[in-house]
């Protein structure tokens, strides 16, 4: 019931996957997502095979196949946006609902979108379950993302929980001053009043954040900040981790090559 609790997905652990070089994990996850999205329309045998690849990764990283599958459902509500495709895609009519016609091509396309998004979400979740965010940032930086952007994001992560708790305090203060009797009608004022209270809280949070940034900057200056942030030494690059990271990519590539060969004629 508490919508405020800000919790990271990362779970520490010891596994081949947890210990993999974060750079390789990021490249591998993006490659996997790209590979999943390339699945040709209607190539349904490819989906369980790709799921098997993700499932074995879940087993290796001790996350659990079913747990990962359930977490992958996070994007499923969005599939409603694609649901109308089953009516609008031209194809053989399957079912008539009043004036609406469900076509076979539409169902195939919708299923494809839903399955691809579910599998891609699992690949992304596996990455964040097994990689600390600071490692992710370091990996992104060494993969040539603009370093200033990465440092800004690192700062954001550093103060995310601080300001999250600041927001919680504001919300708690509002809640403790907004008591109403159970049978009281119209408690809480008009819509504009409620919006103004929320807006005032946002403004107040902005000022606290802005002033905190001034304090933080002054503190950084006092410690000799010259516009550059320094990080720890990178772990050595090992060809062995490249091999480990390449296995799932090769598996998905193989599945996709087969799918393309099989389903070229069908389309």
């Amino acid at each position, binding site marked *: 019931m508490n919508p405020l609790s800000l919790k990271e997905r990362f779970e520490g652990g010891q596994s081949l996957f947890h210990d993999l070089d974060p750079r390789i994990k990021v490249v591998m996850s993006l490659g996997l997502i790209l590979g999943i999205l390339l699945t040709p329309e209607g190539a349904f045998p490819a989906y369980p095979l790709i799921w098997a690849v993700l499932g074995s990764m879940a087993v290796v990283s001790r996350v659990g196949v079913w747990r990962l599958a359930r977490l992958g459902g996070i994007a499923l509500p969005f599939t409603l946006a694609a649901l109308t495709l089953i009516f609008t895609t031209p194809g053989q009519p399957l079912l008539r609902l009043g004036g609406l016609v469900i076509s076979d091509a539409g169902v195939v396309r919708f299923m494809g979108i839903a399955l691809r998004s579910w599998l891609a979400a699992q690949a992304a979740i596996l990455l*964040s379950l097994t990689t600390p965010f600071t490692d992710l940032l370091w990996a992104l930086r060494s993969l040539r993302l603009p370093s200033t952007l990465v440092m800004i*994001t690192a700062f954001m992560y550093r103060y995310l929980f601080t*300001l999250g708790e600041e927001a919680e305090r504001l919300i708690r203060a509002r809640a403790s001053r907004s008591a109403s009797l159970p049978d009281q009608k119209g408690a809480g004022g008009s819509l504009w009043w*409620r919006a103004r209270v929320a*807006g005032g809280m946002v*403004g107040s949070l902005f000022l606290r954040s802005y002033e905190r940034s001034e304090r933080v900057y002054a503190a950084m200056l006092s410690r000799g900040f*010259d*516009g550059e*942030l320094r990080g720890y030494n990178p772990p050595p690059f090992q060809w062995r981790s490249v091999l480990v990271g390449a296995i799932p990519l090769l598996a998905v590539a193989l599945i996709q090559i087969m799918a393309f060969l099989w389903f070229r004629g069908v389309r």
Partner: protein
Amino acid sequence: MFPPFLAMHIPDGFLSIPVALVGWVLLTILIVLALRQTREQFKDRQIPLMGILAAFVFAAQMINFPVAGGTSGHLLGGALVAILLGPWAAVLVMTSVLGVQALLFQDGGLLAIGFNAFNMGVIAAFTGYAAYNLIRRLLGQGRGAQLAATALGAWLSVELAAIATALELALSNTSPLSVALPTMAGVHALIGIGEALITVAALAFIQQTRPDLIAGSVKTAARGSGWIAVGLLIALAVTFASPLADPNPDGLERVAEDHGFLSAAQEPPFNVLPDYTVPFIQDSAASTIVAGLIGTLVVAGVSYGVARLVEAPKADKSTSS
């Protein structure tokens, strides 16, 4: 909270790969520009300030306000940051927010992040900022004008981001434009009202307690006119996308054709670009693009002219720069 499918965080799988890549390219260019601009604006305060404000936007999105019947709204924040600190700062802040949401909480896909950050960062920041400044130039520096400008900027930022999302989904052939556009635009017209109310209230609060912050933002606004170019670019990009999005006529015309009253519609007495096509270009998609382009440039030119006229009486411009 609003149901997630009405939100604008596109998960992976809903944008086709070419569309997602276009988003990445656009975002990369704008990030590089934004990094340069904010570096100039904030010097080495840039990193702590942008980072902490990104955390602020994230935390501010947790502050809910009950609307009715169990639903509640919250701030998106692009327009607020753009009005307070300028559009380039807002682009960086919102990109960080969306990056963390995608990487840490899988709110929005990793490949889709290009357009997610483009919609809720770039489009929201520049439209919010441009609308805010235009209204202030038209209506003056009074308090009422400021709040009206804020409200319009916040509402437009949400509405245009939603329209862009619908266009991208339609371009990817994941959601037909005739469904996605009215749904997204309609729902976000309401969500935008919430955004406008909260942004106005937040700005009014900041104006009361730290008026110096807002005065500072006006000064930086006068300096850079690069946002006009970027706003124009966004408008042009949307123009380019629109005729490619859906070969079917748009919703109203479709209904009109189905009911056979399109022929009954009266033509206006004069017609510069009939039916948004340029007469001497045969290919219909290209012609629509050219017509949209001309229209966009004309609108931009007129707005710029109006803004200049309103601004002209201020003679102290030469001393400030």
